[in-house]
């Protein structure tokens, strides 16, 4: 009887229509574009550009440095250091071997990473004239006050007064200042560091020599020896302890999962509340079953989540590749990440959509979302202890408690040099996916009743009751 030209559709066709609307009205909007794409890109861009900007703005150091050096050793040595090393010391107290690695990386890497490293290795233009005096007022040397006046009038860029006993290690206390540096108020901190480090190094070398130790011997003992740490598991496995860079990988995986899951889950919460408060829900339920609506919404936002994941994850992998650190991520890490991401998304999405269906506005949602959020902040709170001890009791127990378990498990599997036992991974996947389907069932039952309810928000007890009514 119907005159409408309709097409015969499967359950999934209607669900797909709902999914596409959900995706389109989240991902293909200006708000999403700015929030999820432009802002992170801006941060990345700023991070990328800052070194270049610093390089351009690095001020040259030009002028006269006056030194009153009664020891006769320090000024010449400092001048030599500045003339030969420039301001490479601005990398701070970086060990020489690290500096060497950076230089090698700058020379060997292509692309943005090398550009950043090269840009960070800024070297100021140095054009200094030295006035070195042994003692004030002797042999035509000006007085200290006269030199300070020169400094004030801008004729000097720095005045250095070396302690007469500064070069003698036995005549000075270890923490006694061996010299004083005077600079004008307009002096750049970078220039102060340049001059200060050169004179400190020269003073240190002079003190070492005063003890009868050669520079080479001193260098041998100056570096603190580093211990190599190994872990021996009860099963006899032996693995080198992870280093600092490696510690960031599990955190990266977990935060990536957290951000992608929560952005979409939060959208689900707000869009469900919007549909309910705008009274669109009943119109939708006249066209689709609650299950189709629920599935459509969750799958639509899943697509949003996956897009964010690909975008951010891709950028992270590209960054690691540019820095030649992509070996820190293995294929099995990526496969497990995908499996735990699916688990995490559907668990959290179901929770959020169930809560959204049960309330009338965001304020009401807070009281129901609060306990869920506490559960989900636990992985973030436990990040460090779990990364340090990925096979410890805390980590093992936490990795079996939904809904935070996928976050904990991805921390563990990517953090442990000593692998997580395979049985634990399999058990967590079986138990986790079981819990996920259980939560989907429970969330669907609550959604089915909640979307038609108006009035005061339900108590957790009422929510459970909804789940089991006919």
């Amino acid at each position, binding site marked *: *009887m*119907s*005159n*409408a*030209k*309709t*097409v*015969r*559709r499967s359950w999934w066709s*209607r669900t797909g*229509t*709902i999914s596409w*609307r959900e995706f389109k*009205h989240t991902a293909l909007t200006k708000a999403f574009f700015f929030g999820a794409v432009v802002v992170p890109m801006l941060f990345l861009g700023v991070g990328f550009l800052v070194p270049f900007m610093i390089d351009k703005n690095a001020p040259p150091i030009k002028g006269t440095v006056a030194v009153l050096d009664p020891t006769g050793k320090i000024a010449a040595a400092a001048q030599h250091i500045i003339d030969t090393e420039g301001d490479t010391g601005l990398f701070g107290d970086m060990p020489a071997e690290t500096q060497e690695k950076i230089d090698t990386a700058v020379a060997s890497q292509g692309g943005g990473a090398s550009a950043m490293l090269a840009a960070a290795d800024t070297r100021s233009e140095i054009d200094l004239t030295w006035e070195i005096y042994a003692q004030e007022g002797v042999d035509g040397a000006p007085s200290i006050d006269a030199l300070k006046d020169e400094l004030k009038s801008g004729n000097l860029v720095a005045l250095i007064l070396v302690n007469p006993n500064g070069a003698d290690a036995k005549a000075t206390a270890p923490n006694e200042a061996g010299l004083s540096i005077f600079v004008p108020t307009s002096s750049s901190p970078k220039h102060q560091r340049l001059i200060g480090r050169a004179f400190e190094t020269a003073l240190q070398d002079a003190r070492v020599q005063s003890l009868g130790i050669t520079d080479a011997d001193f260098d041998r003992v100056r570096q603190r020896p580093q211990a190599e740490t190994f872990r021996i598991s009860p099963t006899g496995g032996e693995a080198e302890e992870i280093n600092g860079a490696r510690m960031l990988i599990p955190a990266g995986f977990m935060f990536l999962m957290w951000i992608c899951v929560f952005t979409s889950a939060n959208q689900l919460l707000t869009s469900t509340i*919007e*549909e309910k408060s*705008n*009274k*669109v*829900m*009943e*119109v*939708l*339920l*006249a*066209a*689709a*079953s609650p299950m189709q609506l629920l599935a459509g919404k969750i799958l639509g936002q899943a697509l949003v989540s996956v897009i964010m994941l690909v975008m951010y994850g891709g950028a992270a992998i590209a960054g690691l590749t540019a820095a030649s650190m992509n070996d820190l991520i293995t294929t099995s890490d990526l496969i497990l990440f995908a499996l735990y991401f699916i688990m995490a998304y559907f668990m959290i999405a179901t929770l959020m959509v169930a809560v959204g269906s049960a309330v009338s506005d965001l304020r009401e949602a807070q009281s129901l979302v609060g306990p869920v959020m506490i559960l989900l902040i636990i992985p973030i709170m436990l990040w460090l202890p779990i990364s340090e001890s990925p096979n410890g009791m805390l980590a093992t127990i936490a990795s079996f408690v939904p809904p935070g378990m996928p976050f904990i498990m991805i921390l563990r599997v990517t953090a442990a040099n000593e692998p997580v036992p395979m049985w634990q991974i399999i058990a967590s996947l079986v138990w986790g996916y079981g819990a996920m389907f259980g939560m989907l069932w429970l969330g669907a039952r609550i959604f089915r009743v909640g979307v*038609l309810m*108006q009035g005061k928000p339900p108590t957790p007890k009422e929510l459970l009751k909804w789940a089991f009514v*006919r």
Partner: protein
Amino acid sequence: MSLAIQLENISKRFGSVQAVDEVSLELPEGSLCGFLGPNGAGKSTTIRMLMSIISPDSGVLRVLGGSALDNKDRIGYLPEERGLYRKMKVGEFLWYIAKLKGVHPTGLTQRINDWLDRVQLPGVAKKRCEELSKGMQQKVQLLSALIHRPDLLILDEPYSGLDPLNSRLITELIRDEQRRGATIIFSTHQMHTAEALCDRVLLINKGKKVLDANLSQLRAQHDGRGIVVEPAGDPQAYADAALAAGFAARAESTHKGLVEIELRDGIGGNEALNAALAAGACRAVSLRRLSLEDVFVQLVGGSRADLHADGGAADV
């Protein structure tokens, strides 16, 4: 003729409230049925069960020969609670609903524009829903129930919030849909609209069906034996004359200058008209017919004020 809707003793309870109690109904295809009842009578609950949005606790329910879930694409539904996506454009919203209802995308944009023209909303397809007035939004929502040319149209309070011109427009649309062959069931508080439109009325009160009849049967059953006279002179004097003439068992003048007369037993229609003209000079004489509103008040037992209550307690 096959049945569009078949309800057999359906019941629904929410906690301690019996929202619908053993309601039965058989509505043939092509009918136009008014669904009447005071606020909280159970109309919206019955409609939601018809739409399979909620399930009855007991009873049998068939819509278009099966479950409403299986026939969603053949049903158009305007819920009592109006709702649109505020930020969505009108054309996009109608497209979305049409797609959900299984309308093929080919020619859909043109169909949407044609419908918008028809309800005097030309050019609003590109506007966001939030930019429309309440009446315009209501017409858009009605279109979302009609866009797929349904076989069964369920309208919950379609006239609520509309001005007389738009009410007339909606009435024309409903009549057109019936002429097209659609079965229509609509709930309303506007008795005169139901009286003018429907060929069948269903009245429920406190969850129970209290009336299910064709309008003609209803009139035959409930019409009082009376006439209404507009006398040329003083109404009270005419009322006294009518009583004195012996054909009136009771005669009362009204504030509108009319005289309502209840005939004595055994007095027929023609005899009454002749007697009325003989009793005094008249501008008009007509047989008094019981209005649907009178029937409603009589059966529901409430005050007439209930009929005009707007948006009091929500229907369960």
